[in-house]
């Protein structure tokens, strides 16, 4: 089939895409999260992870950590669009500032008996996971770590009776003395 007639410009050649972690300080007011989520969906960007909580109660400021991926120009656009939102105070690209500290927390429920149970216990202690709840047939573990560690832990737990996972998404901060 020949190229269809259209008055729109052609798609640009594909460029390498990278994963970025952004820290966004916003006013904690109703609708802020919807504005940010809407910005991403409306412009066709991805959200890989999103964490939100009020961090400065007196000033009613929340910190949003958002992990996204895109080409260098898309990441620039995302930052520019975030910065343009009225309730947004600051946007910092932690990935651009160098290796940022990134941690997430996962709760993992494992159900099993006998050998499986022993193995689950052993793996959990190897990863340094805490046991939050135990019954004769189940455990709930808490693990804090990088995304990769958590992925590895979940993969191993799948083999010994994993039934449920809850993850917080990433909380991140830059290294060194500089505060944002």
């Amino acid at each position: 089939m020949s190229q269809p007639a259209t008055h729109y410009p052609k798609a640009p050649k594909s460029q390498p895409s990278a994963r970025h972690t952004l820290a966004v300080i916003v006013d904690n007011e109703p609708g802020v999260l919807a504005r940010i989520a809407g910005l991403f969906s409306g412009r066709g960007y991805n959200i890989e992870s999103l964490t939100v909580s009020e961090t400065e109660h007196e000033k009613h400021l929340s910190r949003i950590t958002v992990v996204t991926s895109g080409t260098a120009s898309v990441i620039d656009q995302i930052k520019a669009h975030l910065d343009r939102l009225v309730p947004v105070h600051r946007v910092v690209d932690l990935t651009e500032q160098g290796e940022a500290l990134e941690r997430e927390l996962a709760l993992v429920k494992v159900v099993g008996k006998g050998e499986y149970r022993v193995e689950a216990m052993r793996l959990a202690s190897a990863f340094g996971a805490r046991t939050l709840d135990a019954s004769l047939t189940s455990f709930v573990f808490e693990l804090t770590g990088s995304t990769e560690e958590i992925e590895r832990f979940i993969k191993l737990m799948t083999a010994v009776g994993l039934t449920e996972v809850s993850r917080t998404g990433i909380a991140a901060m830059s290294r060194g003395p500089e505060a944002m």
Partner: protein
Amino acid sequence: MSEMMTGAEMVVRALQDQGVEHLFGYPGGAVLPIYDAIFQQDKVKHVLVRHEQGAVHAAEGYARSGPGKVGCVLVTSGPGATNAVTGLTDALLDSIPLVVITGQVPTHLIGSDAFQECDTVGITRSCTKHNYLVKSIHDLPRVLHEAFYVAANGRPGPVVIDIPKDIQFATGAYSRPRDNQHKTYRPVVKGDIGKIKAAVDLIAGAKKPVFYTGGGVINAGPHAAALLRELARLTGYPVTSTLMGLGAFPADDKQWLGMLGMHGTYEANLAMHDCDVMVAIGARFDDRITGRIDAFSPRSKKIHIDIDPSSINKNVKVDIGIVGDCAHVLEDMVRLWRETGAQVDKTALATWWTQIEGWRGRKSLAYKRSDTVIKPQYAVERLYQLTKDRDPFITTEVGQHQMWAAQHFHFQEPNRWMTSGGLGTMGYGLPAAIGVQMKHPKSLVIDIAGEASILMNMQEMSTAVQYRLPVKIFILNNEYMGMVRQWQELLHGGRYSESYSQSLPDFVKLAEAYGGHGIRCEDPAKLDDAIMEMIDTPKPVIFDCIVAKEENCFPMIPSGKAHNEMILPDFEGDTGQIIDAKGKQLV
């Protein structure tokens, strides 16, 4: 073996496979491939409107005037989509099933502020039941079929499918409706039998019962209306309905109390206020119905049947909430009523009816007659008398004329009454009438209009002429935005700020300019002949009916008042003093 085709061809094929016969739309750059596919087939007939809002209202009228059909719309990106927003919101509030397809800029340009780009799924998120942005040709067949399923099942509503232009050009494998079941969405249609049983017991034990029915009965199909009539006959209880539900129960039945609510009848509102058992069927306790909520039907046990779980206990706490489709629940109720041999309390019921007849005797729909000017109520009454044997379909715009139509035009069957209830969209009636006439080409379709509302979508007259749709536009022309004027009289000391319809067109010449027929009448003695002329003209007609200018629409429950504090038509006094300061804050 699945067939390979382009996205644009998939759209048209899916419409055909879903049984769509008419599609209302307006072309533009981002939907050209779909228009090209429409050009190359003749199963789906496209109706070219003059404004995208008109397309959506036409599809609403089309969907409402007969059961079991989803209304379909096709518009372009950007302004095409934003112009459709009012129609989408209207359909959401009135629970009308629609599938609206919008073009979008190619996927690689989304987010770049391209020409005629807007964030359609973002903008329409809050005014649709569900919406989709299709970013892969592989998702398109599933999304198309899912959209029809979502629009029509559960509480119906509008669904938007936003299709970027590159997806319309892309080639993929088409799959048919039955291969595309929705993964999760399965609305409950059968009611909980234990609750239905409890409801039947409560209904049987009632001394002052009332059935309060709404648009849900219409949406559940003619079968639901038939079951409602059967249940009413079995019990002998009075029936009232919301604006949305008119026609589900025949208006000439002696158990009919008329419409309830802000402009409802005295007997309907007082029956609601004084009842001991209220049975709400497919109605949602809207603020136009309840009036002051803390004084709403204070002594009654309430049963609420609704397909939408979030409607139950939303505005009014109820004693028995039954989630389910009205038709299914009514069927179970009627069956249980017969099986258990339930008996009503005949003595109590007779007393109740005597009380109701007393309220009926107040004649709340009465008005002062005139030989010199046409009273708007009289105009609707004559229109009803002269057309009732022709099984007419009525649409309306929004305002006083809409309420007079609801009060004085009487409906015997469902799906004959199309009005913008929830959103109150001026400009609804003409495009809706076009949609109705498209579905019922041989029927008499009348848009009862006001001179201000009709101008909001007047351009659709051109559509009516193009498709030879003989819709009748019956304008109650009082040279005011009448309901605004009435509220200014009641709330703002009669200071009629900007509510006078200045510089009105000559509606007769306007009709002729469009290629229709124009009639003007200002003499009550000539009204019947003029209406007959309108009915007998086999093309679009604009009837400019000059009516009394400052007539108020009564009865009325003023803002902030309860059902038993209505203003009746024989009110003599200062209308500016009725509503107190607190009531003036309300709408």
